[in-house]
């Protein structure tokens, strides 16, 4: 981890590019936290503008219409309430009212959230509460509801429940940071009394990391795939030499280490992260433990791609990346061999390659601390992503058996649906706007609260597209947000599509439905715009190829009266 001094230096040169605006509000002094966040964002190459609202300014800033906060037009607002300050408030209360303390803090927090929500569509980054054991009743405090210990834990738990029920609030888990460092390393009493700062200078980089990780996820930087080595990474020993029954896995000895590592990977997979294997092995030998060793937690079907051969790993990782059609910078490569790590790092600078500790017993703890898998949404259906990619491989096989692309597409029996955004889908639509980088015309990121606003805005035409075929359901694959700029014109604010369904006629289907809906809404002109990013070059000419005329640089237009849709083999679902 960087030192605070390094962050302070880096803070002077922010990363170039369009910056997200983050406002920091606290009940304590947040000036150095703001410096640390600025510095870390710069070092992580994340363009971020940070406003520090100053000591104990939360209420003034969130309640006043013309406050500095709202003038700053924040994309996110960080709310940081130091437990040490809350403790002082707690002690001011009469002993009888202390048992309502957690609930009263929550009421205050939700009042802040509401006030911010009335003024901006900013994401709210809510810090969890660090621990403070005042031991008024010793260990016994845990079972007495009028103690601070009891109320503080209740507060954290209830906060989780409230956040879960509320779109647009993102946790910054300072409690986890404090648990990792320990209270001694996190809190410096002298600093608190001299400067009202509740985070020790040496701990600030860790607190800043929690904030920057959330900001990175909100700006679409998400890790989607872990590529794993096998021998001495997923199990102990070398399967080619030791045999599938003799590798170290299971509850005995070092096997326990690898079992727990696999359990965690399985959890990642269930949370929507793709797992892939990249191993120097004969394919059959590499697969054998998964098939025949009952102690293995991971099974072959847990992997979206399985590559075992004697090619170099960089080439294999490129193959995996092409198969999954995701960005290199959304992948993490885990290998116990320093030589392989260095090779991959030097050949593919964008991929993350953690410098694993030598002792496998430390792998899991080490990787968990890196917090690679920060996300800004959870839909619960993420686990199906692995199945989606497996179905994709089945399609690829089928494709090779048809002479023409049309015949193949016809054989897929595709059914598409298009619906205005619905509450049950807000979270998935927001997630897609945050994750899509390649097929994304203007790369506008939306939070769940934004999506709700768009859905309810009478001047917006929203469409979410789903696609299924004989191999399975792709789920949500496309999003359109159109905004009426005048009575006759609809501007396409957002058009994005999942790259999994590229070249299947979905582009044509999306535009055909859009033009149809626009026409029915009495709109004559549909205007599209392409905003280039380092990643979306693939859609530079998409509007032209859809039959739009070019208006000027990167702006296009089509006439709903005359528009002739392109060819596609997708039937529109009846139920839509």
């Amino acid at each position, binding site marked *: 981890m960087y030192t605070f*001094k390094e962050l*302070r230096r880096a803070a002077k040169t922010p990363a170039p590019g369009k910056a997200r605006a983050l406002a920091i509000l606290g009940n304590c002094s947040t000036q*150095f936290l703001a410096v640390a966040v600025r510095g870390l964002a710069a070092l992580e190459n994340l363009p971020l503008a940070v406003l520090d609202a100053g000591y104990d300014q939360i209420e003034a800033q969130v309640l006043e219409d013309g406050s500095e906060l709202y003038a700053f037009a924040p994309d996110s607002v960080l709310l940081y309430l130091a437990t040490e300050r809350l403790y002082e408030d707690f002690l001011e209360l009469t002993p009888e009212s202390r048992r309502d303390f957690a609930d009263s803090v929550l009421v205050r927090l939700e009042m802040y959230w509401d006030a911010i929500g009335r003024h901006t569509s900013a994401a709210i980054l809510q810090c969890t509460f660090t621990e403070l054991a005042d031991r008024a009743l010793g260990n016994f405090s845990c079972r007495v509801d009028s103690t601070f210990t009891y109320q503080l834990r209740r507060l954290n738990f209830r906060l989780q429940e409230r956040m879960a029920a509320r779109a647009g609030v993102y946790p910054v888990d300072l409690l986890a940071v404090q648990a990792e460092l320990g209270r001694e390393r996190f809190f410096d009493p*002298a600093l608190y*009394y*001299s*400067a009202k*700062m509740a985070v020790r*200078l040496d701990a600030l980089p860790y607190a800043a990391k929690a904030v920057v990780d959330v900001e990175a996820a909100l700006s679409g930087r998400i890790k989607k795939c872990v590529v794993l080595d096998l021998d001495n990474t997923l199990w102990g020993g070398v399967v080619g030499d030791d045999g599938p029954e003799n590798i170290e896995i299971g509850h005995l000895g070092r096997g326990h280490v690898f079992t727990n590592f696999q359990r965690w990977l399985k959890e990642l997979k269930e949370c929507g992260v793709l797992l892939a294997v990249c191993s120097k092995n004969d394919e059959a030998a590499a697969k054998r433990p998964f098939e025949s060793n009952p102690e293995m937690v991971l099974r072959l079907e847990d992997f979206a791609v399985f590559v075992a051969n004697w090619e170099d790993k960089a080439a294999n990782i490129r193959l995996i990346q092409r198969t999954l059609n995701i960005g290199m910078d959304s992948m993490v490569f885990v290998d116990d061999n320093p030589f392989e790590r260095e090779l991959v790092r030097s050949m593919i600078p964008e991929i993350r390659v953690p410098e694993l500790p030598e002792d496998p017993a430390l792998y899991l703890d080490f990787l968990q601390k890196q917090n690679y898998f920060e996300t800004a949404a959870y839909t619960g259906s993420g686990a199906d992503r692995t199945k989606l990619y497996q179905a994709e491989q089945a399609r690829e096989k089928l494709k090779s058996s048809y002479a023409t692309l049309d015949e193949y597409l016809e054989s897929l029996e595709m059914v598409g649906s298009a619906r205005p955004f619905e509450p049950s889908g807000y979270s998935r639509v927001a997630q897609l706007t945050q994750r899509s980088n390649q097929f994304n015309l203007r790369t506008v990121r939306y939070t769940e609260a934004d999506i709700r606003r768009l859905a309810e805005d009478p001047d917006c035409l929203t469409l979410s597209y789903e696609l299924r075929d004989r191999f399975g359901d792709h789920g949500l694959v496309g999003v359109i947000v159109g905004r009426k700029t005048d009575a006759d014109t609809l501007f396409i604010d957002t058009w994005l599509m999942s790259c999994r369904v590229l070249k299947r006629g979905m582009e044509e289907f999306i535009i055909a439905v859009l033009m149809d809906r626009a026409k029915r809404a009495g709109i004559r002109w549909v205007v599209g715009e392409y905003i280039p990013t380092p990643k979306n070059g693939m859609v530079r000419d998409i509007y032209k190829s859809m039959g739009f005329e070019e208006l000027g640089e990167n702006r296009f237009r089509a006439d709903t009266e005359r528009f002739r849709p392109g060819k596609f083999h997708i039937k529109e679902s009846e139920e839509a």
Partner: protein
Amino acid sequence: MSREEIMAKINEIARDVFDNDTVTLTDKTTAADVDEWDSLTHLLFTNEIEDAFGVTFTLAEVTKSENVGQLVDALMRHLGA
């Protein structure tokens, strides 16, 4: 470590923390004499001194030292010099 050596090291830290190569601290220097020396850079300054010398100042030493000389006195007490 002599007082002169400590003073030299503290000057080095000060130039870094205050980001100003022309800063020269003497026993009589106060925060008012250095533009970049405010309440927060003061904390950074004392924190860097603590790290460099492996000591921990008391709250009173951090907040009540009136000039650099008093801070160096406190530091030397911690160092047992």
